């Protein structure tokens, strides 16, 4: 090839070696383990920060308003219709055996143990984990997080811990409201569709519940709140690649927190059922 100023292709004595499949897999495994380690460290620090000073209570209250009050409309709306649809689905089956009065029992247990915490967790994750990731991610790419550190503020205290504490408080409260509204929705559906009296529905819905059921639902909502806040913060504080990276982190925050909530739900259910047998 003639050497001209426009020549761009240069003969190479030896090209870069292509990594083997084993090396690629090993590198991917290392990256995954590193991410899990960093996520665990951030999660642990977010909790230890709560017991040492300085604490940012004003930021926590602001986050509780944003996460808790802000999520209330979607939780109320979805809770009501989930309760109603549960009654319509189960009532149709119970009608075949003339046992429509059992509808209140089934809806109550399903909402308190499972649907209330899980649906609330997923809804709040969709709304807030993405919001947290995009907010912190934007702060990171515009050097606001570095500015915070440069002024002697620990970002994990100022940004992560208030959000974690806010979700630990508000998600159980939202779950409680969601369960109550779900039972209201169920009652309305059973009165209108199954001709069941409201008193019978409430009496059975309350009587069937045991302490272990309430504890199961409560513990799940606490764990789900912790997951969605820490995943959102981790994704936001690990943005790479400018504004495009912020978009990726936002999507990742919703996907990862939703999957983790469903996976955690399985294990928590198993643990709760075991404890219900042995302890309660």
């Amino acid at each position, binding site marked *: 090839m003639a050497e001209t100023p426009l020549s761009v292709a240069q003969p190479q004595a030896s090209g870069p070696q292509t990594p083997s499949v084993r090396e690629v897999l090993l590198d991917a495994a290392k990256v995954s383990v590193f991410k899990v380690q960093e996520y665990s460290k951030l999660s642990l620090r977010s909790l230890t920060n709560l017991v040492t000073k300085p604490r940012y209570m004003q930021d926590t209250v602001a986050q509780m308003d944003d996460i808790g009050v802000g999520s209330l409309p979607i939780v109320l709306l979805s809770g009501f219709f989930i309760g109603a649809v549960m009654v319509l689905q189960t009532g149709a089956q119970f009608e075949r055996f003339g046992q429509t009065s059992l509808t209140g029992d089934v809806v109550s247990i399903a909402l308190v143990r499972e649907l209330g915490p899980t649906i609330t967790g997923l809804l709040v994750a969709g709304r807030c984990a993405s919001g947290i990731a995009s907010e912190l991610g934007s702060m990171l790419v515009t050097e606001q997080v570095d500015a915070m550190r440069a*002024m002697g503020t620990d970002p994990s205290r100022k940004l992560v811990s208030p959000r974690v504490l806010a979700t630990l408080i508000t998600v159980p409260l939202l779950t409680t409201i969601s369960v109550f509204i779900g039972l209201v929705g169920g009652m309305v559906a059973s009165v209108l569709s199954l001709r069941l009296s409201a008193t019978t529905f409430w009496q059975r819905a309350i009587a069937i519940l045991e302490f272990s059921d309430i504890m199961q639902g409560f513990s799940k909502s606490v764990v789900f709140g912790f997951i969605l806040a820490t995943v959102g913060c981790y994704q936001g504080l690990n943005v790479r690649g400018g504004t495009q990276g912020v978009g990726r982190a936002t999507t990742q925050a919703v996907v990862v927190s939703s999957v983790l909530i469903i996976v955690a739900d399985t294990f928590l259910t198993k643990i709760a059922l075991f404890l219900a047998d042995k302890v309660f």
Partner: protein
Amino acid sequence: MDGLPSRSAVASQIADDAAIAFDNVRIGFAEGEILRGVSFSTRERETLVLLGETGTGKTLTLKLAAGLLRPDSGSVKALGKQVSSMSEHDLLDFRRKVGFVFQEGALFDSLTVGENVAYRLREDRVNEDEIEPRVREILDFVELAHTMDMLPSELSGGMRRRVSIARALVNRPPIVLYDSPTAGLDPITSQTIITLILRLRDVYGVTALLATHRLQDGFALANFHFDQATRHVHRGTAREKSHAAITRFLVLRDGRIYFEGRPEEILDSSDPYLRRFLI
């Protein structure tokens, strides 16, 4: 390096009483080593202008000085403390004594100008009655007192840099680090920023590291001073006016110090690389 003056004798003399001292600092990332054994020091009230092309490690040097990054090897000393070996907890305390002006300002976009400037004071649990006058005073200094209740998005680029300078200075830190404070600004706004930096040096006597790729910024700091009596900027160095402040230049190239010396030394240099900064 052929044809260049040897490193200034001043540098070795001030190493012991240095406000900031780098000793054989190395740092690298996945893309390679950025700083390859950088050593320099500045004494109190001195302004060290870091010159270099994009990607030569100017911002990294500032972040290392503030303890925002740790070197892979070597040591960074500032205000008599080994910054490079401090715990994160101690670093948070140390950083309260250092002002950092980021290239794009890095103002908190959800807070007003007043809240941005007051941020550090509120972190230090300063009495609320004391905060407002102090914020107003420093905003007056940068001539932006009227923007107190505005959001950063409502300000121009130059105004944001000035607010950033006010925020960095509100608790009177002895060291201020400027990361390309005039980058991307028009000549008139750049001059306003440099005049402000000059006033800070001559009024408060801060030690400064100023990263820039504009040689004229450094020469403005070296050749002018702010007269507190007349409240005007005059030609002539601060030293000539009984101030101890001096301005030195440090040129970074390929991760190493290529030149270190006084402004007149860089002007007299026949080195082709340094001459490129003079064009």
